[in-house]
């Protein structure tokens, strides 16, 4: 784990401590054993869970009721990962292994069979059956499903055969395994009666729902949990909107951990030996400056020329405090199959200017930009980009919008900043944003070639898929489809009383069972 004791730098974030290496080896060995064996992890030898962990988030729960399939916010995913099991689990290196499925096998490019663990119970005491698993998967695979998690899946169907659930997709779907490491297994009864989620979340996971009041979502350890017994008795997800209030709560010990912090909060614990800073502890995420397709920006040559005009390194270092990496292709740099492109669009204003002049756009283009405070340091980033564009003869008319209006009207502007997190740690999610109806919604862009490249990598798996992912990301990059300002590094700060904390590259806290509090 990249643990930075009271000191943070991108360079040090890349170093893996010896201890972490040992943990990594242990995890890999453990994962291998888990795959080889279908035995339920013994819980009897574990000590009773104790203590309380309070995690401070800057956003509240957003999902409809406590329905995990409606989740799209950080807290929804956190809660879902505590209350519910998934068929597979992803470790911190991004490897998947069986969880609620005692074993699984990819039968073909379109079919994966999962043997469902027996003896597992939901928190209300009813058994988790293969029918519940199939119903959970079918719920999000259904055509036109409005559930947020439908984005993670491809069309298809899950069927039950004895103790096995067969998941068959209409077309090959390489991201199936990683998606099933996020998809919560819920009871058929809750699916039939969604109002059940109005008051509680009845999963089979390591924690049980207790309450949601006074901005605190409280869960307590499930004493009958079939898997690795949680070491922490109570986990509280506390919503603290104000950054300063969140930091004060962390520094005064009112909360143990603060999530998705910015440079200011990191600086606030610099030199303070009471805290650990966990860097790169989230899903592949990016901050992008959306170029809407239309007007002069429709011309890929202009978009490429503009890409040379923006000094991304300076933005990342000076404005974002050096906490974010830069990607040199059309995906976050920590995404599986990411590979830097040959042309990195290094900052070269002279080249940008001459290209723009040669294209005849110099001094003749005015772009509209909407700006807000949705993204940390958004105003500063936007101002910098306006300055860079002005320097190469592109005028920008900026409209400052309130966050709600910004989110509602960003498609009306040529340029707007946004963030995108990949829920399932798979390129399909990231590349899918640039194709089909989603690409049209975000970028106003429709490109049959991109649709073809996206489908090609989605419909494949293994080593051949890596090549296809590379073709798709490189095409996006070459087309300069947008401005990939920087990756978004998810940094968490935790009090040192929290031991053994680790995260997988997924949204949520599925690995929290390994953490303890002293």
């Amino acid at each position, binding site marked *: 784990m990249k643990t930075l004791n009271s000191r943070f730098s991108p360079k040090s974030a890349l170093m893996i401590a010896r201890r972490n290496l040992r943990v990594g080896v242990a995890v890999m060995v453990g994962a291998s054993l888990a795959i080889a064996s279908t035995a339920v992890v013994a819980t009897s030898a574990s000590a009773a869970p104790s203590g309380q962990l309070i995690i401070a988030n800057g956003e509240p729960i957003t999902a409809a009721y406590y329905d995990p399939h409606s989740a*799209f916010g950080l807290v929804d995913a956190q809660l879902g990962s505590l209350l519910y099991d998934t068929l597979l689990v992803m470790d911190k290196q991004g490897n998947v292994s069986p969880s609620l499925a005692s074993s699984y096998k990819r039968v073909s490019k379109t079919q994966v069979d999962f043997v469902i663990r027996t003896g597992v119970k939901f928190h209300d005491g009813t058994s988790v059956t293969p029918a519940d698993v199939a119903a959970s998967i079918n719920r999000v695979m259904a055509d036109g499903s409005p559930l947020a998690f439908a984005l993670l899946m491809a069309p298809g169907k899950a069927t039950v055969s004895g103790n096995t659930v067969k998941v068959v997709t209409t077309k090959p779907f390489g991201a199936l395994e990683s998606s099933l490491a996020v998809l919560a297994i819920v009871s058929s009864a809750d699916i039939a009666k969604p109002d059940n989620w109005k008051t509680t979340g009845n999963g089979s996971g390591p924690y049980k729902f207790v309450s949601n009041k*006074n901005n605190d979502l409280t869960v307590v350890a499930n004493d009958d949990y079939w898997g690795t017994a949680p070491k922490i008795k109570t986990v509280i997800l506390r919503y603290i909107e104000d950054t300063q209030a969140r930091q004060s709560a962390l520094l005064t010990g009112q909360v143990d951990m603060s999530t998705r912090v910015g440079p200011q909060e990191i600086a606030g614990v610099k030199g303070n030996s009471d805290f650990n800073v966990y860097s790169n502890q989230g899903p592949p995420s990016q901050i992008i400056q959306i170029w809407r397709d239309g007007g002069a920006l429709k011309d890929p040559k202009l978009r490429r020329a503009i890409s040379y005009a923006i000094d991304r390194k300076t933005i990342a270092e000076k404005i974002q405090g050096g906490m974010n990496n830069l990607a040199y292709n059309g995906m976050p740099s920590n995404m599986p199959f990411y590979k830097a492109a040959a042309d990195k669009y290094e900052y070269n204003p002279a080249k940008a200017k001459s290209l723009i002049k040669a294209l005849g756009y110099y001094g003749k283009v005015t772009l509209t930009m909407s700006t807000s405070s949705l993204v940390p340091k958004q105003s500063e980033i936007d101002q910098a980009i306006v300055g860079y564009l002005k320097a190469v003869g592109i005028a920008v008319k900026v409209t400052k919008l309130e966050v709600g209006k910004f989110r509602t009207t960003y498609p009306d502007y040529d340029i707007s900043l946004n963030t995108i997190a990949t829920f399932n740690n798979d390129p399909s999610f990231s590349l899918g944003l640039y194709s089909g109806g989603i690409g049209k919604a975000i970028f106003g862009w429709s490109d049959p070639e991109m649709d073809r490249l996206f489908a090609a990598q989605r419909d494949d798996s293994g080593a051949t898929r890596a090549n296809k992912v590379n073709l798709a990301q490189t095409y996006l990059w070459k087309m300069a489809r947008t401005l990939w300002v920087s990756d978004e590094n998810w940094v968490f700060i935790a009090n040192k009383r929290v031991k053994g904390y680790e995260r997988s590259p997924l949204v949520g806290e599925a690995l929290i069972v390994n953490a303890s509090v002293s």
Partner: protein
Amino acid sequence: MRFFFSRVAQSLVIISGITVSVFFMLRFTAGDPARIRGNIFSSNAVLESYRRQFGTDRTVAEQFYSFMKGVVHGNLGDSFRYQQPVTELVLPALRNTMLLGFVALIISISFAIVLGTISARNPKGLVARASGVLAIFGQSAPLFWVGLLLINIFALKLGVLPSGGLTSWKNLVLPSVTLALSILPSQMRVLSASVKAELDEDYVRTAHAFGLSSKKVYFVHVLRNACLPLLTVIGNDMGMLLGGAIVAEVVFNFPGIGTLALIGLNARDYPLLQGVTIVAASTFVIVNLIVDLLYTVINPRVRLGASK
């Protein structure tokens, strides 16, 4: 009794006006709740399903009819974000805010009475001068800044009080002191001026002439009369308290109506925002109604004046 009914009728008209205007103001303010609820990559089909769920796919007139029908039956609808009845969300938050406001009021009134009266009796004394400085500080320092200052001193440096939340009585201290500081200056000044004026009244001299002790003259007669303008100020302070609570609750992460309003605003959660506004405004109106009625109890001339 006529005075009472007249005031109640006025209050009902004000609350109805607020209820109607908050509905239309929200509808005509830009911001589609479905887009805010959905992801950046939500398709039109998903957005439409949210609009159907929220009822925002219907005409404003239809939405207004359903809303008013619900209000008449005490149903403020379900929150878009929480999918829970708004009343279940607003009432506990209101209780917390009322508690915060009440404690702030007690603190400010206590200090206003002590400092105001001492200042009135000895305008050139140390307490009067210190009170003047405190009043200037309270009126000029932004609420959020005072809050952060108190957190820095009492939570971060001294570690004697929590910086936020609501888990024990200790959590009330810093936000209520912050709020109290914002309303204390006006209360103190009004009371001080009022006490000064009362001390110059003939009845004070007469009371002394009749041999009443200074304490009795002061506490039974002067302070009671001097408190009348204070009561008016307190009525107005309720607005300050509710407005200030939004800032204080954010700074101190206090789970009150201000925090809820902010969540509602960020999510364009129409029912929640309507509920918060209606309940907060009604509270303000009702408190002012009570103040008006109390005024008539303390000073019957107001009641008589109204009946003429």
